[in-house]
């Protein structure tokens, strides 16, 4: 009985710690500017207003940022999943000469080991030479590259869990390698695929550094950069930023909830045999 109470207390603390900033953001997005700076802050009793939402999405270009973020996140996630899944399958199933499959895996992983900022300048120069600066394409390419190692390592683990017999049976039954992958293996790793997709999408959606370096105008700016841009030399638009932030949370939240049943299964896949 007592332990149960303690458990809930810990949970409550964690929950408050996690959700307080979110609550703060939501309330600010709904408060008029005067209330932002009131001391003590009006926690619950204020007159809600949608003026910041109007300001952000109608007067300013946050609508466009939102679309850019969505396009970049979805397309880069899809690219990373397709390429990464095929690579992971190859690494999981084929033994390459000179122990290359293991070395390649480590090499792929190592690209995630150095800090992102290290690649920011080279990427900027590359994108400039390719005339891709300030385009969505540049972000899609960079995010795909950034997510690939993650997809490869996640999916490789999931593929390792699928008994080889199943694919071999599919091959003997007359199917091609790709056919066996699509018809037999992928349906079995769907939870893993879903979990991986959620993570990729979140990473791409939240990414700030590369988006800041590679984009300059409203045409290609993503939400995180757009939001941060409201901190200017002269003023900080807390209301607009909070309104945009509140909206930015929604798509990921919905997607993660839709994928929740896969998420838990995907992350624990292979933890227990059978």
């Amino acid at each position, binding site marked *: 009985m007592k332990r149960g109470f303690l458990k809930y207390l810990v949970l409550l603390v964690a929950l408050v710690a996690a959700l307080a900033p979110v609550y703060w953001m939501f309330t600010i997005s709904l408060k008029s500017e005067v209330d932002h700076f009131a001391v003590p802050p009006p926690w619950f009793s204020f007159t809600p207003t949608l003026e910041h939402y109007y300001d952000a999405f109608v007067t300013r270009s946050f609508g466009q940022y939102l679309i850019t973020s969505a396009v970049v996140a979805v397309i880069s996630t899809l690219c990373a999943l397709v390429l990464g899944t095929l690579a992971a399958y190859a690494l999981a199933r084929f033994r390459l000469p000179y122990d290359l499959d293991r070395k390649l895996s480590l090499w792929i992983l190592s690209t995630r080991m150095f800090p992102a900022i290290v690649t920011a300048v080279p990427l900027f120069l590359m994108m400039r030479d390719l005339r891709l600066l300030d385009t969505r394409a540049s972000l899609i390419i960079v995010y795909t590259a950034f997510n690939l190692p993650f997809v490869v390592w996640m999916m490789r683990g999931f593929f390792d869990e699928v008994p080889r017999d199943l694919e071999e049976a599919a091959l*003997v*039954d*007359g199917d091609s390698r790709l056919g066996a992958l699509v018809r037999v293996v992928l349906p*079995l790793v769907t939870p893993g695929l879903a979990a991986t997709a959620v993570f990729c999408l979140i990473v791409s959606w939240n990414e700030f550094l590369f988006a800041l370096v590679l984009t300059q105008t409203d045409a290609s700016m993503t939400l995180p950069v757009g939001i941060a841009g409201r901190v200017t030399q002269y003023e900080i638009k807390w209301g607009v930023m909070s309104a945009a932030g509140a909206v930015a949370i929604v798509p990921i939240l919905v997607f993660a909830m839709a994928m929740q049943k896969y998420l838990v299964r995907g992350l624990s896949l292979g933890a227990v045999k059978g």
Partner: protein
Amino acid sequence: MSIQFKNVRKTFGDTVVVDDLSLEIVDGEFVVLLGPSGCGKTTTLRMLAGLETVTSGDIYVEEERINDVQTQHRDLAMVFQSYALYPHMTIAENIAYPLRVRKLDKQERTRRVAEVAHMLEIEPLLDRKPRQLSGGERQRVALARAIVREPRAYLMDEPLSNLDARLRVQMRGELKRLQHQLGTTTIYVTHDQAEAMTLATRVAVMKRGQLQQFDTPLNIYNRPANRFVAEFVGSPSMNFVDGKIEEGVFANDSVQIPVQRANADQITIGIRPEHISVLTEPQNGAIPATVYVTELMGNETFVFLSVGNNRLIARAPADFRAEVESPVWLRIASEKAHFFDRQTGLSI
């Protein structure tokens, strides 16, 4: 469909798994590859299926060299030890899979699945998923999936080894009946000599990647090519006694058996348990022995015996009774005995 292995060799790194294997399998034959684990029998089957590459040598199917033909184009069906049913598909979808891959239209698929399901009596299972099935049922579904497409040959990798003993014997019979009915060449891998004896038209006994003997079950049993084959086939196993032959008598320290053989020094005599009769009274020429232990099997009794330093097993009638350590006398049907060179193990 005829299948031919010509000097086939398979190595994994420095390990030779299959060594210079040559086999000719005639159309419609039921060939069993028999041997202990690690003898290369499964690798041989997988090379035929295209799931392993051939290091050197050639495999022919109906005069066509198939070394470089991809698995999916070989038109062979395989039944896996694990059954390898697709867990996310229903039984009907599992069976229809080879047809779906071949782009048969839906009507024809349904018709053929129904036909095979009827033949194997699995019609009530068609809408279920593999995990809802018992081992025996999964086995039937795996067979159905192999049969449905009418392949050039069936490859079976220890298909009965996951079943309990009773079901195994039942499925063994059904497999034999099925193969008789279909008349399709079948290659069957097992380490169970009883399966090999009952199913095969010819048995290929393998040991450490090398073919020991390829012959009918009866010849394998009655005329084993070497000591390994003699020991591996038959249950309980053949008895072996080392000794030498001098003047028509096989002898060592504790045994003397009159034989019709030329003199030889380093020799092993092999006697099947059924060729030793155990007597409870001394008799002229019988070999004295003591009972080590007896095992009553119901329809017969296995008598484990000590003769000097030699351990022998004999088959006795079910009503045979003898106390442990009691003296008995053995009569050996020496005309049925086998002789092996002690160095090479070859039958002589």
